[in-house]
């Protein structure tokens, strides 16, 4: 991610010497920074969803009495956990592909 940002800055500084393009590329850097923040937010949102899915299961056990409803909520909780896992993994995939070690 840092490499990507550094690359963006380098490109921006080169092309920004051309008149009329400076503002455009500064805007590009700003967008890159925001994307970085979004990746971090994606990761934490994913972990939040995973924990939420677990507590959905606990709530289903505690609050619901009928087996069918419990079944439904527990499966939903499991699905929420998997969505969270998918989001965290996606954020790491983006970071891994961006770093190109």
């Amino acid at each position, binding site marked *: 991610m840092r490499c990507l940002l550094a690359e963006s800055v380098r490109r921006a500084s080169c092309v920004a010497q051309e008149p009329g393009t400076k503002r455009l590329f500064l805007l590009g850097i700003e967008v890159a920074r925001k994307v970085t923040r979004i990746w971090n937010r994606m990761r934490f949102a994913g972990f939040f969803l995973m924990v939420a*899915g677990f507590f959905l*299961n606990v709530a289903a056990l505690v*609050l619901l009495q009928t*087996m069918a409803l419990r079944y439904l909520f527990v*499966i939903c909780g*499991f699905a929420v956990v998997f969505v969270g*896992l998918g989001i965290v993994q996606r954020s790491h995939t983006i970071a*891994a592909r961006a770093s190109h*070690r």
Partner: protein
Amino acid sequence: MSTALPATMTEATYALTVALLLVAPMAIAGVALLNTGLGRSRSAAQSLLGSLLILATTVLVFAIVGICWTGHAAHSGGSFELAKKSWDWIGLEPVLMRGVAFDAMTTRAPMAAMLEIFGVALAAIIPWGSGADRWRLVSACTASAVSAGWIFPLFTHWIGGSGWLAQLGANFGLGSGFLDSAGAANVHILGGLTALCVVWIVGPRRGKFPKEGISTAIPGHQVVYVLLGCLLSLVGWMAWNAAAAVVVLGEPLTAIFSVVLNTLLCASTSIMATFFITQARFSKPDASLCANGWMAGLVASSACAALVTPGTAILIGCVAGVITPLLVELFELGLSLDDPSGAISVHGAVGIWGLIAVGLLGRLDGSATRGGQFLAQIIGITALLGLILPMTYFFFWIMNKVIPFRVDEDGERIGMDLHELGGGAYPEFVMHRDEFHR
């Protein structure tokens, strides 16, 4: 461990179980050898020494503090009341294993404690292979200490004795509660999820995912080690599964034969399935993927060996063998996860399949229903993925800020052996130029 189990056993059962327990660490040796073989030659000594140090760290930390939170049979720990049910969530035992009566003949508790010690060591060695060639020794030992001191004991308490997952059957009518034959959840899935956290944090090896094109294959340096590790693991796994069936599930000695048979059937079917899948996909069978298939069969047997019939064990092993090579490929090519030992798919994903299979196809006791048992298994898996995984990642993320997990670029280039130990594993071999090129 069920609280309904008697605290003592007959002398014959005791003697045979002790013999099985003494063979069980072969599984740890097998996994350590497999991890070493799947890494690079320039990191081989560091890999095997790391396995020993991780084993030592986890055993020490678990014996000193981990056992406090694990608790053991017939002792309930810290609990709270919710919906008029008791939720036992943590063990409260004295430190340094003072709560375990090792001198008492024919009691179950010391054997359960020994199984837990072997389990925590194996769970910590599993992610070591995933961080191969880039995970520093000091940070690996520190991470293992956290796993052994808090994460493993916590989840082991939940699934054993009076833990809340084990009591799902008694408290909420969900089958027999969460069932795990021989540590698929607290050893293998936990190890696989820890491996996932490590791979997330340390990132891929240098040159694994180049800017141009698809990922680069970095094959293991010694396939003979890998396959020998598989054979060693079989011996250890059969003993481990049999000992766990007697100690954890309270099975009679006569059940040992079927447990060992199921373990063997699961592993055999799994490697055959992987063999045919790789033959069909690449026109030749892949040795390291077949080794992964074998290990996947063993992991699946950890979940179900004492709870299914031989026919069901064949089916479970077959599914494990089919999904393993596909998952290894998906994780590497689709998700950019650089996992040299394949621990995430072999131990994590296949462990989850084993637990689900117990809910779908496992033996039902008494008035337990299939739906209830399946639900109990799903809740256990959700606890692992939804709570234990974020907790592990959080701890590792903090630790990575203090003791960086990843070796610096120079160290990765010259190899972990020279960088961390000052000498290579194969000093008489001709080294490649790029290993010393700075």
